[in-house]
């Protein structure tokens, strides 16, 4: 029932050199949670604010449930879009109690209905006992939940969340994230939320949209984005890849650490870059070898090894938490992906690490 469609959206701020949002198009249907992810300044928050009606697009069309809310000559103000928004700083009204905050969006309904809705919302997030408190007397997690149900109470067509968990500390974030996701799924809400944290995006999103410099680089399921990044930026941003030089020969790609049994994508020159994550690389101690251990970081469940190949190329590799090897050892590194790797044309803005 609820759908948002965006076509060729553009927004340029007078003070900025580049466009904040550059020709972005996507659609999102019923009950799905979409995570807009990207580094700061990549246009994700602006996109969210354009959908909410808090900014006016320079060009492009936004449809909510098929109805045009922003286009050339059309601009529906935020109060008539029926879009709920959870702000980064929560923006709970300091002069209203929690109850009044949640009831704020229900104006014009019958008193009895308002009471039932607010109580239902309070129950949903376990804030019944906080109803009479003012926002300053709530903890961070309680504010977060109050802000969420305030946005949900008027039953919005679409719920927007702007870095909703960034003001919470790490422990709490994990817990609240879980609660929020189950509530949203229970209500079958259609949600777009913004985050710069890829782990959060993977956890919360049914779909991911990766933004970079105002452009939508790739949109898809978390698995699609993670396994088959379409651009070097996506590969690097989602899961910290190293880029290894390779040469496409016949149906294979030859690299410094072995030959990959996969062809380079069609239409690409024979000089390519292969994106390798730490879990795609393994190594054994070998005096001859093709590189050495530079550093070991103990991550609890894993050891993350930083290797330097003889060419100077840096690579990362995971090992089990008990496999502790001395720094400086000569090693033979090899690919152990078990799935096709993402391959990009060389010199295509690929930044190695």
């Amino acid at each position, binding site marked *: 029932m609820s759908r948002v469609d965006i076509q060729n959206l553009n927004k340029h701020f007078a003070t900025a050199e580049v466009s904040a949002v550059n020709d972005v198009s996507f659609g999102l249907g019923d009950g799905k949670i979409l995570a807009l992810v990207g580094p700061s300044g990549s246009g994700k928050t602006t996109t969210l604010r354009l959908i*909410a*009606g*808090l900014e006016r697009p320079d060009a492009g069309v936004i449809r909510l449930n098929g109805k045009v809310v922003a286009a050339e000559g059309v601009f529906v*103000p*935020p*109060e*008539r*879009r029926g*879009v*709920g*928004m959870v*702000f*980064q*700083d929560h*923006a709970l*009204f*300091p*002069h*209203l109690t929690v109850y009044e905050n949640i009831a*704020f*969006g229900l*104006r014009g309904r019958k008193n009895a209905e308002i009471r039932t809705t607010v109580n239902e919302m309070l129950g949903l997030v376990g804030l019944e006992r906080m109803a009479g408190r*003012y926002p*300053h007397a709530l903890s961070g997690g309680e504010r977060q939940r109050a802000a969420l149900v*305030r*946005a949900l109470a*008027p039953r919005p067509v679409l719920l*927007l969340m702007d870095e909703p968990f960034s*003001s919470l500390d790490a422990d709490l974030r994990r817990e609240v994230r879980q609660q929020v996701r189950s509530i949203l799924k229970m209500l079958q809400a259609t949600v777009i939320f913004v985050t710069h944290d890829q782990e959060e995006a993977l956890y919360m999103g049914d779909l991911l949209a990766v933004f970079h410099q105002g452009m939508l680089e790739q949109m898809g399921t978390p698995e699609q984005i993670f396994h088959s990044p379409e651009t070097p930026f996506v590969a690097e941003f989602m899961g910290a890849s190293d880029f290894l030089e390779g040469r496409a020969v016949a149906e294979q790609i030859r690299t410094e650490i072995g030959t990959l049994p996969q062809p380079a994508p069609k239409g690409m020159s024979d000089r390519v870059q292969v994106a390798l994550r730490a879990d795609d690389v393994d190594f054994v101690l070998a005096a001859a070898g093709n590189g050495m251990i530079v550093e070991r970081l103990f991550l609890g469940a894993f050891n993350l090894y930083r290797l330097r190949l003889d060419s100077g190329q840096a690579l990362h590799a995971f090992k089990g938490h008990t496999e502790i090897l001395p720094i400086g050892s000569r090693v033979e590194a090899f690919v152990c992906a078990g799935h096709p790797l993402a391959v990009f044309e060389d010199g295509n803005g690929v930044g190695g690490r």
Partner: protein
Amino acid sequence: MLMQKIQVYRSGAVRRVFEFKAPWLALTAGAVAVFVAIPLLYIFLRAVGADETAWQRLLQTRIWRLLGNTLALVAAVTGGACVIGVGLAWLTERTDLPGRRALRWLLALPLAIPAYIGGMVYLTLLRPRGGLIPQALEDLFGQQVATPSPLGFWGAAFILTLFTYPYVYLLSGAALRSLHASMEEAARTLGRTAWGTFWQVTLPSIFPGVMAGALLVALDILAEYGTVALLRYETFSSAIFVQLAGRYDRSSAAVLSSVLVGLAMILLWAELWIRGPRRFTQMESNWRPARRVALGRWRLPAIFFVAGVAFFSLAAPLGVLVVWSFQAFTDGQVLEAVFRTGSQGLGSFVWNSLWTSLLAAALAVTLSVPVALFSIRSPSRVSRFVSRFCQVGYAIPGVVIALSLVLLVNRLLPFLYATPLVVVMAYVLRHMPQATRSSEAALYQLSPTFEEAARSLGRTPQQTLIQVTLPLILPGLLAGGSLVFLTSLKELPATLLLRPPGFDTLAVRVWVWATDGFYIQAAPAALVLVMAAALALAFLLHREPIINEQG
């Protein structure tokens, strides 16, 4: 008070403080509180101990009328100041009004003009018979033309509003500025129009700022003597003044004073009560200024409104004073009178004004330091009480301080009687709260890590206080001092009642000449007074983000 309110307002909830406990500190702070509290307690003792007949006579005849008059004026001026102050703050902070940066200065400056000087200017211009404008119109048209009269309730309300609205303007401007943009955006996404958002979210959010400003205006009006006396509108303050100066009926004066102080206390309490449990401090993180509203076709009316306020409260009175000063300097006889009145001239008024106000500022700041240290650095119920007590001066109008000091000094410190030092003492007592609040705010904002670092580097608590704390809070102390200086410079009734014969300050001279109708003669002194006050105000305002920041 202005500045500290803004600061406290921003600094947020309870935080860690560096504790500093010393017995001498508690004793000193306690002594200051006693010094400040004595005049107030004395008035109540006198009022309670007054002749029952004095009470009855006053209750039967004057109190009710005075109460009605005073409350009506307070309500009208406070209301007017709120409408103008909030309106202007919104226009200069949140819209695309041209010249906002300059306007923020101009709109705050009327605070430097004592209302009775404004009253003098408008009275001279518009007096129903013999005013310069009605006279000129009559000469022009050969018959009388109706002009608005500055006398009475409406005149007093209008003129007092013109010179007190900046309190509300500055405080609500600061509140608007610290408001998160997301607050209003949230209201929009929850279905409010821009207009509905203003009434239901923006206004309630800046409410504490508006109320703080309104309180200052209301207390100012309660204490106001010069303007209401000039414009012949009787309030408690002016009635007490007449009892004291004219009839020497100290019992009646004490009774009226206790009622007046009671009123002020109610106002102070009401402001706390109205604010209630809501706290309006917001987290600083992610602060983004709200977007400016494009005025569109309202641009012209807005410009007219702002220009009108600036004209009546600043340009007109200053312009008139400048013109009259020129006339004074071109007329030999008047010039003679300006520079020599009896044995004294303009130089001595300026000197008297400056040294009394500066001394009062220095004393008030010095006394406020132990109180602030005590209340912030060793917080307890006792220290909070001491700090509160040092702020009752707000509630005691100048005439009441004067009455109390006349009685007390006569009885206890006769050697001080009829010396200018009593005047200085009145200034200190009356303006002590401003110094206390400034010092407390400065201390409160000082990160405790500076003092902790000094201790860890081998300084004793006393050394830390002198080498680290005091230098760091100096700007705050100076701000408090310049506020005391500014308000002491403008103080009229206490000066009039307490000065020794022949001891004239600028405020006194301007007032005496104005009441005698020698307005041209009064103009140069008035101009000097306004300029000195404007300098102190400018020093205060340049520290203000509302004035400083771009935008």
